[in-house]
C-alpha cells in the first residue's frame, strides 16, 4: 500500500514546535518529526508518550545483580568452596562490589540494545525516510494525507506563522519515498 505524505520543512526550533502543535490540534495525522537534535517539548507537541525504557533498565539491572550475586555465592560456597584466610564462604559484603559492576553492565548495555531494537536501528541500515538537512539544520514535519478532505492549501495557511520554507508531496511505497511523478510512473 502506498501512503501519500506531505513533507513540511522548517528552520527553527520554535517553528517546528508551533507547527507540530498546530497540526495535532487540527487532527492531522503526524507520521513523524525529524530534527537535527533533541528538541525539548516536541514529544508533548507530537503527542508521544514517555519512553518506558527506565523499566527495562531497572529489570535488566536487577537481573544482572541477582544473577551475579547468586553466581558468587554458588562458586564461593557450593561449587568449590575454598577457605580463604578463614573468611566465611558466604561473605556477602565482599560480593557487593562485583555485584554492583555487573548490575551496571547489564543495565547499561542491555538498555542500549533494547533501544536499538525498539527504534529499529542496526549497523548498515539504510533509513527509509531521510530528508536532506534533517541531520544538519532543517526541521521536518511529515503529515499523512489520510482522506480526500486533506487540503494542502489549508495546511499552508496553518503553517504560515511558522515560516514554512518548503513543502513537498511524496508517496511512500515499498521502493522507498518517491515524489508524485515517480510514483505514478512506477
Amino acid at each position, binding site marked *: 500500500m502506498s501512503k501519500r505524505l506531505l513533507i513540511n520543512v522548517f528552520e527553527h*526550533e*520554535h517553528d517546528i*514546535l508551533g507547527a507540530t502543535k498546530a497540526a495535532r490540534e487540527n487532527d492531522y495525522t503526524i507520521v*513523524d*518529526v*525529524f*530534527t*537535527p*537534535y*533533541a*528538541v*525539548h*517539548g*516536541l*514529544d508533548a507537541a*507530537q503527542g*508521544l508518550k*514517555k*519512553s518506558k*525504557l*527506565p523499566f527495562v*533498565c531497572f529489570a535488566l*539491572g536487577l537481573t544482572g545483580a541477582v544473577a551475579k550475586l547468586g553466581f*558468587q555465592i554458588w*562458586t*564461593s560456597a557450593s*561449587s*568449590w568452596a*575454598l577457605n*580463604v584466610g578463614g573468611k566465611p564462604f558466604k*561473605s556477602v559484603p*565482599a*560480593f557487593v*562490589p*562485583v555485584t554492583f*559492576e*555487573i548490575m*551496571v*553492565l547489564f*543495565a*547499561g*548495555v542491555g*538498555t*542500549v540494545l533494547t*533501544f536499538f531494537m*525498539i*527504534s*529499529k*536501528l*542496526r549497523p*548498515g*541500515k539504510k*533509513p527509509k*525516510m*531521510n530528508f536532506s538537512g*534533517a*541531520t*544538519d*539544520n532543517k526541521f*521536518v514535519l511529515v503529515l499523512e494525507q489520510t482522506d480526500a478532505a486533506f487540503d494542502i492549501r489549508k495546511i499552508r495557511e496553518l503553517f504560515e506563522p511558522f515560516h514554512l520554507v518548503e513543502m513537498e508531496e511524496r508517496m511512500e511505497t515499498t521502493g522507498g519515498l518517491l515524489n508524485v511523478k515517480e510514483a505514478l510512473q512506477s
Partner: protein
Amino acid sequence: MSEIYSTLRKPLILGNKSYADVTADIAQPLDRKPSLPWWIAFLVSFSMFILGATAVIYQLFIGIGTWGLNNTVGWAFDITNFVFWIGIGHAGTLISAILFLFRQKWRTSVNRSAEAMTIFAVMCAGIFPIIHMGRPWLAFWVIPYPNMRGPLWVNFRSPLVWDMFAISAYFTISLVFWYVGLIPDLATLRDRTVSKIKKKLYGFFSLGWNGSNKTWRHYETVYLLLAGLATPLVVSVHTIVSWDFATSVIPGWHATIFPPYFVAGAVFSGFAMVLTLMLIVRKVMHLEEYITLHHVEAMCKIIIATAGIVGMAYMTEFFTAWYSGNEYERFTFINRAFGPYAWAYWIMFSCNVFVPQLLWSKKIRTNLLFVFFIVIFINVGMWFERFVIIMTSLTRDYLPASWASYSPTSIEVATFIGSFGLFFSLFLLFARLLPMISIGEVKAVLGYGKNNQQ
C-alpha cells in the same frame, strides 16, 4: 522557546552560529587532509608507542626480572602508571555523566573529547596490570569460567578480582556511552560527506539514524539512564582501585580515607588532562568559539575544588597517623615527608596543593598559557602522588631488615613512555576520524544565553 532567557546567562557558543555553521565548523577538519603539525605529532606519538611496545615484547620474553622490583618492593612503576591512567579517565565520565545530571550545559563542547580521553586512558591503564601478571597470556584466569581445574573459581573476596570487573565494566560502559552519543553525529557526517568510502562507513555505524523524534524520545531516555548508571560506576571504579591498597595491612595504605581521596584525586588529575588536551585542540583546530574562555574557567574551578579536597586528604592522613598512636603509621608518614623519597613527596605536594591555588585569580584563570603550565604541573604532581603512596609504604615497612630501595629500569620507563605514545596516537586519530565536539548537543545549546525571540 523552551529556553528561559536571562541576562545573567552568557552564551556558551560565541560568534552567532547557525545550525549549519555548527555542522560545518566541527565536521570541516575531517574533510581536510591531515596537516604537517598533525603528522609530526602523530609520528612522535607513534614512535613513543613503538618504543613502549618493544619494551613490552622484550619483557614478555625475558620476564619481569627486567624491572627494578625486588623482594620488598613488589609494586612500583607499573601500578603507579596504572592508577595514574585510570585516574585520568575519570574526568571524562564526570563531564559526560555527572555534569549532564547536574544540567551543566557547558559540558556539550567538551564531553565528546573527554569521553574519548577516558576510553584511551583506560586502555593505557589496562596494559599495566596485565603485564604485571608476568605471564600475561594467562590473563584470562582472572575471569571466572568453567575450567578443567575443578572448576577452580576466582576468589571473589579479593579486591584484585573486583578491580578486573570494575575496569572492564567501566571500559564497556564508557565505550557504549561514547558510541550512543556519536550516533546522531555519524548520521550528520554520513549525510554531508561526498567520499563514497566515508559515506559507507559513517552509514554503517550510524545505524540508519534519520533524526526521527520517535527515536530521539527513547534516545534522550537512554542517555539519561546511562548517565545515571555511569555516575555511581565512576565512583565505584576508583573506590575499588583504592581498595587494592586499603584492604592490605601496609602502613600508609590501610586507611578508610582512601576511597574518597582517590576519587577526588582522579577527578582532579582527569580535569588537568582534559584541559591540557582542550587547550591544544581549540587552538590547533580553530574551535575557540566552541571551547571558550568560559569553558576553561569552569574546568579551572573544578580543579580548584578538587585540589582542595586532595590537599585536605594529604593533611588528614598526617593527622590520622599521629592521632592513631600507631608507631608504624607515624613512622611511615614522617618517612614520606622527610625520608629518602621526600623529593617526590614535595613535588607532589607543591604541584597538587600549592600550584592550583594560583587559579583563584581570574587573571591567571583566563590566561591560557598560565593555565596550560598549571595543568601540566598537576599532571606531574598526580603521577607523583601514586608513586609516593606506593614507594614510601613499600620500601620501608614493619621490618627494618627488609627495607629496600627502588629505581625504575630503562624498560619500565620505556613502557611508561609507550603508554603516552598509545594515548596520544589514539587521540590524534580520533581528531581526524570523528567529530571532536558533539554536533547535535551543541546545536541544542546554541540558543543558551541568547535572546532568540527578538
